[in-house]
């Protein structure tokens, strides 16, 4: 079926060309990468852009590049590429685990990490994981490049700090000092295309500092700073978990929607926090359970 809404399609060959088109078109343009959100949203008339700017032929946006203190994931990099990357698997196993939890192979072959955070639905899988990694979003505009810290990126459901005319060129992930372990726990109704009913990412650093974030239980993915402060420096024991669970209602604000009720989400986040923290602790001490194993 062709779309009722008609638009123009352009495929610039370089970054400068893309930014020029975007700055001229402003809100009338949408950036097209994998299209797995954008195309159905146009079909459902949630969006009606006048021009789609396909960035898939811009060389500079491809690939995963390793720097001394960070890696750069280009805006064209798909979830399948993240899963297949030895660099990601070895240095950022939490990103590997998250990418495996995204939809199914046919979607992951197209959908990009950058697109996922640009769509910015509250249940996006990348959000909690990029928050605990303290990633930065690389943004190009006509006046140059700027970096937006992940904590400032999500503004509301489907709203980000990106301004009209700007293009996300990639994501910087700081390489953790020493070996960090973590987990991504995703609750869904079934395995496959389902969006998260609730999700949690945890990362523990070598000095026992913890970072924790939740998805699909607030208007945006959120860091859980009270829980982080409480458990940092502590061993994960039954008593610590019991106290940490009590902090959950202060960290999240879930709603009832088509995928789950508020009450169910509040309950399951407790279960997920407990399993996730125990799994992370176990990974740190024994290397098991392996990354990619479903934790709930």
């Amino acid at each position: 079926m062709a779309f009722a809404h008609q638009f123009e399609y352009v495929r610039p060959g370089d970054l400068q060309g893309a930014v020029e088109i975007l700055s001229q078109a402003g809100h009338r343009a949408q950036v097209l990468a994998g299209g797995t959100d954008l195309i159905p949203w146009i079909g459902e008339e949630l969006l009606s852009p006048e021009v789609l700017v396909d960035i898939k032929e811009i060389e500079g946006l491809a690939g995963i590049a390793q720097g001394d203190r960070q890696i750069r994931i280009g805006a064209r990099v798909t979830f399948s590429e993240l899963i297949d990357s030895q660099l990601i698997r070895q240095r950022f196993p939490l990103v590997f685990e998250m990418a495996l939890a995204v939809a199914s192979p046919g979607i992951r072959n197209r959908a990009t990490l950058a697109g996922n955070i640009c769509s910015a639905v509250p249940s996006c899988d990348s959000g909690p994981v990029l928050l605990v990694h303290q990633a930065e979003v690389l943004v190009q505009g006509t006046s140059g490049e700027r970096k937006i810290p992940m904590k400032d990126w999500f503004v509301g459901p489907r709203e980000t700090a990106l301004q009209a005319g700007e293009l996300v060129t990639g994501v910087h992930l700081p390489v953790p000092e020493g070996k960090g372990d973590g987990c991504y726990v995703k609750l869904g109704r079934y395995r496959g295309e389902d969006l998260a009913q609730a999700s949690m990412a945890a990362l523990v650093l070598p000095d026992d500092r913890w970072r924790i974030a939740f998805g699909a239980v607030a208007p945006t993915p959120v860091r859980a700073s009270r829980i982080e402060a409480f458990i940092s420096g502590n061993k994960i024991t039954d008593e610590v978990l019991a106290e940490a669970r009590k902090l959950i209602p202060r960290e999240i604000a879930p709603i009832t929607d088509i995928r789950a009720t508020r009450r169910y989400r509040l309950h399951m986040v407790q279960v997920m926090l407990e399993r996730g923290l125990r799994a992370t602790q176990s990974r740190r001490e024994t290397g098991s359970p392996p990354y990619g194993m479903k934790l709930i």
Partner: protein
Amino acid sequence: MKRTINLIVNEESWPVEVEAGDTLLDVLRTRVGVKSPKVGCERGDCGACTVLMDGQTVRSCLVLAVEAEGHRITTVEGLSKEGLTPLQQAFIRQNSFQCGFCAPGIVLAATELLARNEHPSEDQIKEALAGNLCRCTGYQPIIEAILEVSRGGDEDDV
């Protein structure tokens, strides 16, 4: 707004005139005349419209025809040009499909899996098929057929 693009479908060149908003699925079915990709949910949930693009499964309902320009598109019509593949033969032996609406998508998803991993486990097969819905079979005869190929294609082992 119309433009002419050259699609490569099952190793044949197809010059077609399209609008920017025409999906690959629509162009394959109505212009190229390849009918194995099915119109299902049209939002990427069901997997019935799956095709291979440069060897990777994609949802052709989520790809614009203009995006497919210059890429190799393969459907089951192209897979079976030289006769049925061992995978397709295993699907027949295991009576894997009933109505057949999901079959093209599942054949291609399993083809991609086996190209990357000749001996997938049951869990890996389930993961590869997670985005392909089937309302008839309960999936078991589909998984059995792929396992048969994974084990080496000898039906006597099953």
